[in-house]
């Protein structure tokens, strides 16, 4: 029903030509709608892309009004669908009161967009960028809802540095609401968790500094996010062994009659090659999966020269994960040996991309980027043997994306984009509909977008 409503709205807006912003009694209303199509030749990328999918849309409407010279208030409703995510549920994207006391000091209170990298605050706005999919190395789709906005307060401003340019700062403090069916759940399901009961995020601290340098068009930024996440989750595990190794291990189901060592890591074809012998020991574990001291740093550079925009962003994510017994809050024990089922695990990811785009004329723009994400910066080739499962992550340890995009601006309100991704790696990638997975694959995207 929701999809029919959005399709109807989209067609209506198409037929209306170029709608404009509306104003009623001092309240200004803006909106955007976009509808896309995704298709992959192998694997599934956050949706049933192997068969091609139109479950890829965004819609947003915002209301804003100035209350006084320095005081304003606004809110935006947002809905999106991208395969398993969003499902066109209506959410409040942001809603805050803004008091801009001076250019160098302002305050916001409410639900505020998170300045994560240069483009997180504006990632929902397809109309304002070249690319359909932002580089997944920094702006992963599965993290989108989690890092979109927080409920809290911020201070911000621009500090003039005389001959050295300007320093823009934002500091935020608050809490994040994460739904049980969000990307966090998706990430855990790719590791083998079977149920996600609740996701709880403790206090979140966000810092952002952007230096607008004296060199015209060059800005350099650093942003940081500190948080802790508790996931109330369950795992259905079976004890047994593959006949090629005869080493007993815990496995989790990944398909009808198909099992994988927990946490899922190795290239799935191995699961099919060797028969698994079930030792008739099965447990359903309810646990607390704690991601503590999650520390995200992003270093960003953007240079604009006339119609050319070049950007580079580098991110590290440091985290410690531990699985606790919900009742005792101790490490979960192996039901057979009494040893810790999963030892605490420290991890540091590493991701980066470089992009360039050029606008040739009023209606045509070309862009390209090269994006790289590593699950573990110390295991770029996926060869590190997991102490529990006894297998390496293989191609699940990285995702390298070569992307090329063409953007056509039909008029000031409408834009059409076509995009091709050549992928190497399987970091958070799902098998195709037959359970197969291919390390080298392609993703095609098209999107029509309207803003008013």
């Amino acid at each position: 029903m929701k999809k029919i409503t959005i399709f109807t709205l989209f067609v209506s807006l198409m037929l209306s030509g170029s709608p404009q912003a509306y104003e009623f009694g001092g309240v200004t209303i803006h909106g955007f709608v976009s509808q896309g199509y995704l298709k992959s030749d192998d694997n599934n990328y956050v949706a049933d892309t192997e068969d091609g999918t139109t479950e890829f849309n965004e819609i947003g409407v915002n209301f804003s009004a100035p209350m006084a010279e320095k005081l304003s208030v606004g809110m935006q409703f947002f809905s999106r669908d991208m395969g398993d995510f969003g499902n066109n549920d209506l959410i409040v994207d942001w809603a805050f009161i803004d008091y801009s006391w001076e250019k160098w000091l302002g305050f916001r209170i409410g639900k505020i967009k998170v300045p994560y990298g240069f483009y997180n605050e504006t990632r929902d706005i397809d109309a304002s960028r070249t690319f359909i999919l932002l580089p997944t190395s920094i702006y992963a789709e599965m993290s989108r809802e989690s890092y979109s906005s927080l409920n809290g307060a911020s201070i911000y401003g621009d500090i003039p540095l005389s001959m050295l340019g300007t320093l823009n700062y934002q500091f935020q403090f608050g809490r994040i609401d994460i739904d049980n069916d969000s990307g966090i759940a998706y990430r855990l399901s790719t590791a083998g968790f079977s149920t996600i009961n609740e996701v709880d995020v403790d206090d979140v601290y966000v810092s952002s500094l952007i230096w607008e340098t004296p060199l015209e068009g060059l800005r350099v930024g650093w942003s940081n996010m500190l948080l802790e996440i508790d996931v109330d989750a369950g795992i259905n595990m079976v004890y047994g062994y593959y006949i090629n190794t005869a080493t007993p291990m815990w496995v989790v189901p990944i398909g009808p009659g198909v099992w994988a060592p927990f946490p899922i890591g190795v290239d799935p074809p191995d699961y099919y090659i060797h028969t698994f012998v079930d030792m008739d020991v099965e447990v359903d574990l309810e646990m607390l999966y704690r991601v503590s001291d999650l520390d995200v740093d992003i270093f960003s550079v953007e240079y604009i020269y006339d119609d050319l925009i070049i950007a580079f962003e580098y991110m590290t994510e440091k985290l410690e994960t531990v699985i606790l017994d919900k009742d005792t809050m101790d490490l979960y024990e192996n039901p057979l040996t009494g040893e810790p089922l999963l030892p605490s695990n420290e991890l540091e990811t590493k991701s980066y991309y470089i992009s360039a785009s050029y606008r040739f004329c009023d209606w045509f723009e070309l862009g390209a980027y090269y994006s790289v994400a590593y699950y573990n910066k110390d295991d770029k080739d996926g060869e590190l043997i997991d102490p529990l499962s006894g297998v390496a992550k293989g191609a699940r340890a990285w995702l390298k994306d070569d992307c090329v995009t063409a953007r056509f601006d039909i008029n000031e309100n409408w834009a059409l984009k076509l995009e091709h991704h050549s992928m190497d790696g399987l970091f958070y990638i799902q098998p195709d509909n037959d359970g197969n997975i291919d390390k080298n694959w392609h993703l095609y995207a098209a999107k029509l977008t309207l803003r008013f």
Partner: protein
Amino acid sequence: MKDRLVVILLFLVLAGTVFLFPGTATETAASSGDVVVICNPGVPTDSLSKAFLRDIYTGKQKVWSDGKKIVFVVLKRSKAHKRFLKQYVRKTESQFQNYWVNMVFSGKGQAPQKFSSEEKLVQYVKNTEGAIGYISSSTNRGGAKVVAVQ
């Protein structure tokens, strides 16, 4: 490997385009003529710095020195619009538009009102307290105050 070569080649083409064909998508100074900045007669200044003007058009400067709200307006697609943006805001037309799309949809600001003709813009600036805009130097100022930009 072949795909990576395509991306690298595209990067080089994009970068090379800027230096081989400068100004293909933007108006050159010679072809667009000069623009003048105009204000409502009640605005408490006769001159502005380039930095102050840029802050106004990027939404960072919100009030005049007397505390009154700044109401900044723009022309729709035109040579004067492109010329003004390039000279004082240091953005192309599409970059300026995308900047304000981002500001509006992240709740950080209200996009400027757009005018399809310079005459209508002059009338609006003349009649609206705290208003500022720009027109071609050859257009009649119609009672709006011209301010120098230094």
